[in-house]
């Protein structure tokens, strides 16, 4: 049993806004739903499967299904942080493959830039680690910094190597008129920017923006009936990593397992990948993903990114050609959705001409949600051009 080529991405839409003070979060979800469905040539009335994460207002997907007027026969409101939309692609493809639904809608929306973000996962009370982490001042950039500091210690990785990741993202973002940060930066700019949580500088961190995105997945019959060029889901994997009772290795993510499973299901190898969308909450998140997905050996990520490896269109492994979350956007503080959307653009040949990867046939999108060093949700999706 496999999802390989059983489901097709027919619609993808990224909200154009980066500051949306006049929208409710529900309205942002609705706008991206309409955008993705219009891209597919479908309507809300066609949707029978709905997938959303913890950014959706209300209990699970109930409130948004009501708000959107969906006739849903399959719903998944699972959450693992900002990577969950990649997980949802796998879940939607499995639901389509088994006939549980035929048109699956995935939505993301949020306003962390212009309003206080509702804390996800707090509905049912504080989590069990609450008395052992926040009391010590645990914060997001700090736990990512702990992984970076340990990687530097074990492997000799440098801040300059991490900065190469931001440089590549900024080179791409200059072509994206909607990107929050379009200025091209240098390695020196990154390492001379203020320290946020050592060894991570301000420019090692992603942006904070409002916005959202949506995807529409359909079964093969519907894909064939649409005028739109669709993208095949070839494989998916996901993995949760956590502290293991205090025995974690903070330099390793669940990408080792989610990547292995996705490659196995897709039946492709690392050398087949033309483009990668990697959730870039911080530069270190990208470095660990490159290693754990097997594009280079553990500890070699710092050397791997040198020499323009990640720079489109001609680098060895072009990544995040929209500028990613390091430069473009980070709706709802969740970066998995936009990694999928840009991967779909690449496979459709619809990325900006300056960063379109020539003859892009196979792409990988990958996310690390939650927190490095403590607990994270990883998901990997491998996509193929419809005719590839």
């Amino acid at each position, binding site marked *: 049993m496999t999802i390989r080529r059983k489901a097709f991405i027919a619609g993808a839409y990224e909200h154009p806004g980066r500051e949306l003070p006049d929208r409710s979060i529900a309205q942002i979800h609705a706008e991206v739903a309409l955008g993705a469905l219009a891209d597919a040539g479908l309507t809300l009335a066609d949707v029978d499967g709905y997938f959303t994460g913890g950014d959706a207002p209300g209990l699970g997907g109930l409130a948004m299904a009501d708000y959107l007027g969906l006739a849903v026969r399959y719903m998944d409101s699972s959450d693992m942080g900002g990577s969950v939309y990649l997980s949802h692609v796998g879940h939607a493809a499995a639901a389509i493959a088994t006939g549980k639904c035929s048109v699956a809608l995935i939505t993301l929306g949020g306003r962390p830039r212009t309003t206080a973000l509702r804390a996800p996962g707090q509905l049912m009370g504080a989590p069990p680690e609450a008395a052992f982490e926040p009391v010590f*001042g645990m914060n997001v950039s700090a*736990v990512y910094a702990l992984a970076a500091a340990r990687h530097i210690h074990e492997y000799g990785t440098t801040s300059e190597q991490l900065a190469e990741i931001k440089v590549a993202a900024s080179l791409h973002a200059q072509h994206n008129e909607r990107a929050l940060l379009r200025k091209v930066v240098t390695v020196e700019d990154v390492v001379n920017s203020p320290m946020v949580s050592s060894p991570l500088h301000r420019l090692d961190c992603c942006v904070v923006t409002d916005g959202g995105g949506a995807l529409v997945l359909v079964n093969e019959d519907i894909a064939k009936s649409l005028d739109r060029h669709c993208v095949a889901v070839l494989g998916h994997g996901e993995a949760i990593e956590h502290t293991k009772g205090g025995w974690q290795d903070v330099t390793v993510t669940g990408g080792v397992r989610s990547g292995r499973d996705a490659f196995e299901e897709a039946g492709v190898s690392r050398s087949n990948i033309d483009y990668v969308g990697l959730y870039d909450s911080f530069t270190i998140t990208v470095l660990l993903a490159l290693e754990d997905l097997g594009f280079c050996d553990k500890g070699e990520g710092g050397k791997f990114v040198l020499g323009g490896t990640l720079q489109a269109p001609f680098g060895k492994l072009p990544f995040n050609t929209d500028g990613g979350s390091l430069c473009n956007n980070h709706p709802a503080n969740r970066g998995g959705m936009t990694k999928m959307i840009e991967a779909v653009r690449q496979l459709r040949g619809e990325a900006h001409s300056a960063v379109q990867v020539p003859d892009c046939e196979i792409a990988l999108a990958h996310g690390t949600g939650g927190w490095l060093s403590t607990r994270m949700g990883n998901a990997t999706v491998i996509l193929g051009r419809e005719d590839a």
Partner: protein
Amino acid sequence: MTTGAELPAPVPEVQPETAAFWEATSRGVLLVQRCTACGTSVWYPRFLCSNCHSSELKQVEASGRATVYSFTLTTRGILEYKDCGPYVLALVELEEGPKMLTNIVECDPETLSIGQSVQVVFHDTGAGSALPRFRPAA
């Protein structure tokens, strides 16, 4: 730089399964659970062993000695730490094995290093518990 007793000491929410742990901290004792089935020491305290899933865990008095596994000088505190200035958040590896998230205090962050020996100190929360933090070992 906030590296001493002026660091906030938020009151932890005590659960039935963590009451013994927090009571011990008020006496200056760091307890670590050890699984009697597989022998693994576990952090943070909980109902079952995250290694073998046995619920036969016993409380063991930890030595209080640890080494720095990783650390960061962070400027982005939230909640009680929002306005306290930069502080060191660290993962330390306890002598008993598991790593715990904590703070390194009474130190110069510029000279702190991974692998350095540290010793537990307790900061009273004023509510019948104390936060186990670490300072460089003498």
